[in-house]
């Protein structure tokens, strides 16, 4: 694993933005956009992940757990 998977949501288009960042660099490579209709569960998981990052009391362990869930869901989607 020389890259980190990154997830974000575009609430306007109701899409999940999936990107990757090679380790040791500050660059981000766009991978794909997944619409809400294609994978509702992944979309909702990334929405939850976003709400964790924007919470006033940031919970690092909750973020890591939710990030793992998102990675797992994305892995299943790609199978």
């Amino acid at each position, binding site marked *: 694993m020389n890259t*980190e998977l*990154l*997830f*974000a*949501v*575009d609430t306007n288009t109701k899409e999940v*933005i999936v*990107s990757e*960042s090679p*380790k*040791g660099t*500050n*660059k*981000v490579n*766009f991978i794909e956009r997944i619409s809400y209709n294609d994978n509702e569960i992944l979309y909702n998981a*990334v929405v939850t*992940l*976003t709400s964790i*990052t*924007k919470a006033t009391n*940031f919970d*690092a362990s909750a*973020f*890591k757990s939710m*990030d793992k869930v998102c990675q797992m869901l994305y892995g299943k989607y790609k199978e």
Partner: protein
Amino acid sequence: MKTKKIFLLTLLLIISICGFSQSRYISATTKKIVFTRDGGVCQCCGSSYRLEYDHITPFSCGGSSSPSNIQLLCMKCNRSKSNSCVCKIHSRTVGTNCCNGKTTKKATTTSTQCTGTTKKGARCKKKTSNSSGRCHLH
């Protein structure tokens, strides 16, 4: 052996207190947090392509690499911002506490040989960085 350990521990403590350990490196967790928080788009123009992580307060001006000081910018906006506070392309402020291109590192000054003469009439051999071109003795 014991004194060596104490010396190393003291050195480590001094380094951590002085903040020399501050790194430009952005951790994997920070990258994930910032990408999700910023919605995977440039915080200046809204583009989602060719993105880069940027220090809000430039690293050269003493900015840290914690999530609160990192943002997503596209390559064009990041190059335009550089270590200032403004993206010149979109004329938007995308940084804080910028030192306007001046780094916090000590500037190197050029020194020249003093133009004064000694009591014996010989040329002074002292180096000076004074604008007058003379050392403190002359």
